[in-house]
């Protein structure tokens, strides 16, 4: 079954309640997201999901030179950053988009849906 990465985007700077207006709103969103994850698991869509620490905690690494170079902060300096993600399996894009809409509602964030490579697309890539 095709796999999709569902990335949640939100403000790079986290406020007191992780970007939520209040503690109650944050807890409600966590509960809704938990219920959504349970649904994913029950219906065989769930591969992996987790939330991320704020983007300021990221370290960017370039290991292509003689010595690896470490830079404090995310690779792209943008106002909006990825805050968490799901890896799901879905029959097709329509199903993935419907799941992303439900996930977006639960976590109160905008979700980007991106397909993973498939065996066939990798083979096509390796063709001369």
């Amino acid at each position, binding site marked *: 079954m*095709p796999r999709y990465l569902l990335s949640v985007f939100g403000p790079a700077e986290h406020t007191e309640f992780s970007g939520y207006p209040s503690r109650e709103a944050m807890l409600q969103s966590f509960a809704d997201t938990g219920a959504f994850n349970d649904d994913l698991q029950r219906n065989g869509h769930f591969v992996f999901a987790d939330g991320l620490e704020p983007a300021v905690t990221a370290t960017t690494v370039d290991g292509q030179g003689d010595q690896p170079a470490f830079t404090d902060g995310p690779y792209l300096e943008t106002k909006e950053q990825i805050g968490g993600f799901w890896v799901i399996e879905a*029959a*097709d*894009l*329509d199903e*993935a*988009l419907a799941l992303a809409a439900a996930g977006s509602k639960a976590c109160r964030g905008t979700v980007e*849906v*991106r*397909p993973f490579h498939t065996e*066939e*697309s990798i*083979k*096509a890539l*390796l*063709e001369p």
Partner: protein
Amino acid sequence: MTDPSAQEAIACAYRQEWAQMVAGLARRFGDLDLAEDAAGEAFATAVQRWPREGIPPNPGGWLTTTATRKAIDRIRRESQRSAKHQAAMMLYDDAPAEPTGPVEDDRLRLIFTCCHPALAMQARVALTLRLLGGLTVPQIARAFLVQETTMAQRITRAKAKIKAAHIPYRVPSAEDIRKRLDTVLAVIYLVFNEGYLASEGEDMLRVDLTEEAIRLGRLLRTLLPSEGEVAGLLALMLLTDARRQARVSSSGELVTLDEQDRSLWDRDLIAEGHALVRERLRTVAAGGEPPGRYQLLAAINAVHTYASTGGDTDWSQILALYDQLVLLDPSPIVRLNRAIALAELDGPEGGLAEVERFAQALDGYHAFHAARADLLRRLGRSSESQAAYDRAIALAGNPAERAYLTRRRDQL
């Protein structure tokens, strides 16, 4: 090689069979690229063989069989597909597709795939014209005034996204079909308007696109005969296109509805459009769903085309239809058109007051300034009218429209 009957038979088969061939191949092989290429190769083979060997008794069947063989040959040559995958794709499969939606026509699946909301609007338009309309990439590029390479890339990227993101090849479920149908209708109407209004460039009318949009509208009507908005869009396009000959003067100037020579209108298209509008009125009167946006626009156009002179136009009916349309779509452009109808009923003063309300929202829209200029002219406020015409001329992209507005301004 130049046997005219064979040439004609190929051209005719191309118009009739292309969409069905691509759609059938896409279902069978699950690959739009392969479907498009195999259908193209089948026609190339026909061009070589029909003049020499004669036109086959069943041209459509011949083309489909040939295209299927071409597709299978290609799959055999492609080593990136596993042997198992190749075998699965080549299995002889003449069975109809498994039922997944309300209607089981391959072309309908193809329409919904090409107009998928996950694709950008430009990509939907290009794919629809290429895969369903059978227009070539250079033709589509010319119609939209972009480089051929740009258009080819747009189509290639869209097909690549359909494949990589697994956009399904099927008719949406009954609960989703209305929403998805809206995007299909929007694509067809955009193609029509691009041909009819030609907002850029020197051709006032780009006939290919209006004809293509009407052809797609007729196809959709055949596939979804009970959808009111499908009938509405087709009627709207027919009633608009019927006035094509009268819409531009011999000197290349736009002719407004009230000044058009109505004997130039295409009576057959009008009759067909009126029949569709009447059918919808009967259905709505019998307790069917209330009319949507395209049905209302078609009805407004039917009132115009029903009048034998501009003076006979039933403006109170047009205003009543705009009142309904404003409820569905309260955008400033719809309300501007309602205000223009109001001016015909209540006189320019009331109309102008209503039009002025959109001064801010529509400041960059030439039709707003043109409507305002006309009302000011009728009220004898010449200098204000002139300034409004100046704004309209500066904003109008279409040369025929500019010529009309310039003449109007200079007559003040």
